[in-house]
């Protein structure tokens, strides 16, 4: 393709059309921002983005609808975590009883170092209990490094309630149904 480069005529060489064009463009943008308030700036701390579904923010622990910890301290997430941000303290042989019936155990302590976490989502993928999810928080701040290590209590509080499956409750119900004779539906 050949682009014609016509020599500028005297009117164009006087720079006046360019100045007029420049003024038109700048005035349009100025008027849009000042009179119609169409600026592209988001006043950040007051206004915030709406995160899309599936956004991978910080990983938090979730509780089930009955308010019980879903985590069973299997430590898969701790093993898979690429930057080794997760540290789980299992209850041990004589440890703490889980806070819901029929579950084997729950973690004594569950810490995520948010300074190390890379928000990759492997913990969420590997979790057999659907107990940890990457949520929509992206701006985590603290005044000291220690504050950035989130413990179980904090993670559960931030994580909120997950309305998904309740595996152990289902198992409990199944076990109860076993006691009833004749067995229904089999």
């Amino acid at each position: 393709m050949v682009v014609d480069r016509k020599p500028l005529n005297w009117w164009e060489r006087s720079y006046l059309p360019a100045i007029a064009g420049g003024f038109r463009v700048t005035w349009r943008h100025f008027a849009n921002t000042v009179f119609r308030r169409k600026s592209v700036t988001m006043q950040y701390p007051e206004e915030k983005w709406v995160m899309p579904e599936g956004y991978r923010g910080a990983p938090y622990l979730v509780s089930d609808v009955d308010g019980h910890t879903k985590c069973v301290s299997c430590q898969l997430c701790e093993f898979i975590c690429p930057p080794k941000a997760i540290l789980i303290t299992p209850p041990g042989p004589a440890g703490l009883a889980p806070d819901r019936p029929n579950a084997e155990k729950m973690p004594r302590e569950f810490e995520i170092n948010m300074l190390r976490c890379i928000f990759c989502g492997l913990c969420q993928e590997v979790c057999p209990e659907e107990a940890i999810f990457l949520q929509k928080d992206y701006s985590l701040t603290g005044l000291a490094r220690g504050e950035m290590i989130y413990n179980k209590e904090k993670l559960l509080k931030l994580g909120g309630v997950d309305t998904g499956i309740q595996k152990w409750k289902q198992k409990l119900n199944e076990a109860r149904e076993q006691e009833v004779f004749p067995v229904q539906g089999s």
Partner: protein
Amino acid sequence: MFESVQYWDPAAQFVLFSALKILVVFGATLTFVSLAVVAERRVSAWIQDRVGPNRVGIPFTNIRFLGLGQMLADGLKFLLKEDFTPNYVRTVYFWLAPAITLIPAFLTLAVIPFGSTLGNPNNRMVIANLNVGILYTFGIVSLGVYGIVLAGYASNSKYPFLGGIRSSAQMISYEIAMGLSVIPIFLLVGSLNLGDVVGYQSGGLHTWLVWKQPLAFFIFLIAAFAETNRLPFDMPESESELIGGYHTEYSSMKFALFFLGEYANMIASCSMMVTLFFGGWTPPWGAEAATTLWAGLGHVACFLAKVISMMLLFIWVRWMLPRFRYDQLMDLGWRRFIPMALFNILVTAFVVALWQR
């Protein structure tokens, strides 16, 4: 207490009033510089669909006050930054250059009549009522180039050096066009005193010299852009090519002095344009020298309003036009504006000669 001043020796009165005027003009100019920086940031933001600095208000409160606290914050930032002197610079010149840039900008303001009087007809609102006002101005303005050249030389580094060279060529070329462009004004007015120029235009909007000398105004305006190193002629600085041009190696308050100098220069050339072409302190409906304090203050306000409008023009143009190429700039200066200015002088001289006969 104030009444006793009028029984003083006239010389003592003169010294007192001059000192007061110098203090007020100096303070007002510095305030205007910081206001201009904020205005520049806000206006440029608006033109670019942004909001600009709107957060900083009164410190330690939540009062934002249109972001005008940014003035203070910017100044403080410059003061508190590390003042770094690279070890390869020519130290004496390196320290001298910012001052040499700043001083001429303030000196030019001395001859600008920024108001009529404040009631006392012997005390005119101009620091130095010189009969050679405009010559003084051009003499001082041409000193402005030294600071920049010196900064470029003293930095001992290639980008500042190129910036310095560019600025010397640019400022010297445009000074000629600028000087030639105002000659018709003085042919018409018949005096070099800026007070007389304002007096000539005091009849109201229709007597402003911009209508009689549009070409002179046009050339002066563009030369003023070049003299103050503003876009579209900011070749000495040109961030995209020369990093920061002549002030690349400067930091902290020394850098701020260049900044101050640039904006003070802008204010000086805006005041000059207002005085020469837009009737100075006279309101658009015309006025005689004020006889009361309030009328005098009104005239000062009128002058300030005109200067602010000119400043807004300067700021606006920065975002309107791209930077000129260096040869285009030189071509415009030498081959367009100087002949145009000479032609203008000739025509005006003929008209004045025929009209006065």
